[in-house]
């Protein structure tokens, strides 16, 4: 654990091209955004229950429906719960938008994606982000030129909306409720990293590295008020990396989903239930298996943290990563771009580890 100490995120001369990213739900939507926005920095991505890039902009109704309202409606009813497959996001159109965004210089060149390796998962019992949407994510990447053999697509496991573990105390596999960590008899994080990096050593029995708690606000700067990111983030630094014995260690960024940040507090009847804060806030970065396989394979794991904000201006009560635009302040730095508040902050953390 972090031993109660707050440290400054360190520099470990990590690789600048062999890094990867994964996430669940809003973390998966953000994984896709970050992967595209900074594709030059990544070799692969793991997407658990996430939709394609800018899917919240799939459909704009006419009349009094503003683009902001439209993005929220799209995210809820097209990118999460479409009534039928035909009302899920249009991958072809979103590919066009991604190419235009790259040509406008807002994200990295999409050609960087061609040799990336992708793990894409949707549980067949997921009723939060439907499988029809996740299928579009696969199609989206294929249309962008990612080789089919580089994509591991799984849709036949009867899992609810969750990251899957083999922890006996986690929820039953088909569950669709917080903390969205379900027991399916295997560690999904290990499958993700093995798919991205190829054969890896078995996970360590004991963690001999450090799980560090660092101050995220130094990476937010003036953007902090609308970033909806927590004060602290976490990073697991393997023992050999700490000892300086690894040349160019790889970094994996693991993004939690909604209601999974360390300081998430449930709200009942519109008020924070501070007397009964859920006890699972640290489970995503301690029990999902990333750290044990990272220890034996010298991979740094970075766990940025989002937090709930719902103050009228920013409407993100569940502490989700921004994939529908709540953090956009300036037209030149929209929520999906390299300069978006959250994407910029997370990439600055990666830059620090690589320095």
């Amino acid at each position, binding site marked *: 654990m972090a031993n109660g100490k707050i440290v400054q995120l360190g520099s470990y001369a990590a690789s600048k091209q062999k890094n990867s990213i994964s996430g669940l739900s809003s973390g998966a939507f953000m994984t896709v955004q970050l992967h595209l926005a900074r594709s030059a920095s990544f070799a692969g991505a793991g997407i658990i229950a996430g939709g394609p890039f800018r899917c919240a902009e799939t459909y704009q109704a006419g009349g*009094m*429906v503003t683009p902001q309202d439209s993005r929220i409606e799209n995210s809820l009813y097209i990118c999460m719960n479409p*009534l039928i497959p035909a009302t899920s996001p249009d991958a072809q159109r979103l590919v066009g938008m991604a190419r235009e965004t790259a040509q406008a210089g807002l994200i990295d060149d999409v050609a960087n994606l061609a040799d990336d390796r992708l793990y894409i998962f949707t549980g067949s019992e997921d009723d939060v982000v439907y499988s029809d949407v996740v299928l579009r994510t696969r199609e989206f990447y294929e249309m962008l030129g990612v080789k089919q053999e580089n994509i591991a697509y799984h849709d036949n496991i009867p899992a609810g909306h969750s990251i899957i573990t083999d922890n006996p105390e986690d929820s039953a596999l088909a569950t669709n409720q917080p903390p969205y960590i379900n027991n399916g008899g295997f560690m999904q994080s290990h499958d993700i990293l093995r798919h991205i990096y190829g054969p890896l050593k078995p996970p360590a029995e004991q963690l001999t590295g450090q799980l560090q708690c660092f101050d995220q606000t130094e990476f937010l700067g003036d953007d902090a008020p609308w970033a909806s990111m927590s004060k602290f983030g976490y990073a697991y630094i393997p023992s050999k990396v700490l000892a300086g014995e690894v040349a160019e260690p790889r970094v994996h960024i693991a993004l939690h989903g909604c209601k999974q940040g360390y300081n998430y507090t449930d*709200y009942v009847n519109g008020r924070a239930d501070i007397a*009964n804060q859920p006890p699972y806030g640290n489970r995503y970065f301690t029990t999902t298996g990333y750290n044990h396989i990272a220890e034996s394979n010298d991979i740094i794991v970075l766990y940025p943290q989002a937090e709930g904000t*719902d103050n009228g201006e920013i409407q993100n009560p569940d502490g989700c990563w921004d994939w529908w635009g709540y953090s956009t302040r300036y037209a030149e730095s929209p929520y999906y771009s390299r300069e978006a508040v959250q994407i910029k902050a997370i990439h600055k953390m990666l830059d620090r580890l690589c320095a």
Partner: protein
Amino acid sequence: MNKFPATVSLNPIKNENLVAESAAFATSTVAPLAHAMTAQRLMQKDTSHLMNNGALSMALAARLWDPSVWSELTQMQAAIAQRLELQNQNWRKGFAILAEDYAQLRQANTMSKLLEKQGNLISQSADLMTSQATDFVALLENIDVDFGYWASQKL
């Protein structure tokens, strides 16, 4: 905690300046007007969806010969029926929980416990009603958005 198979609505306010600003606004005379305007804006938005979808439906009439249009319309109707059935199941589950709690009122052995249990029952009833209402409105919004999107693709 809510025991029903439904989510709760959320509205926390953290920032101190914002709390002061909100308090000042809440006591001002324009607050009811502002709330009415918000409700009006949302109703206008829904009306806009309806008008838009009405126009799309008219235009879609020319495509009624297309089996894919019929097939997907039927799928959409089935999906709506399925969601209504799920909502019905949630209502029945919630009602069963309420009935169970009501039966347990007799086990209270102090007046304060009896009052607490009665209060819990009232709160849980309100939660059930609220979740049913919000789920139903969310389904209507879902239909509005998805039909508009689907019809615009078919034209």
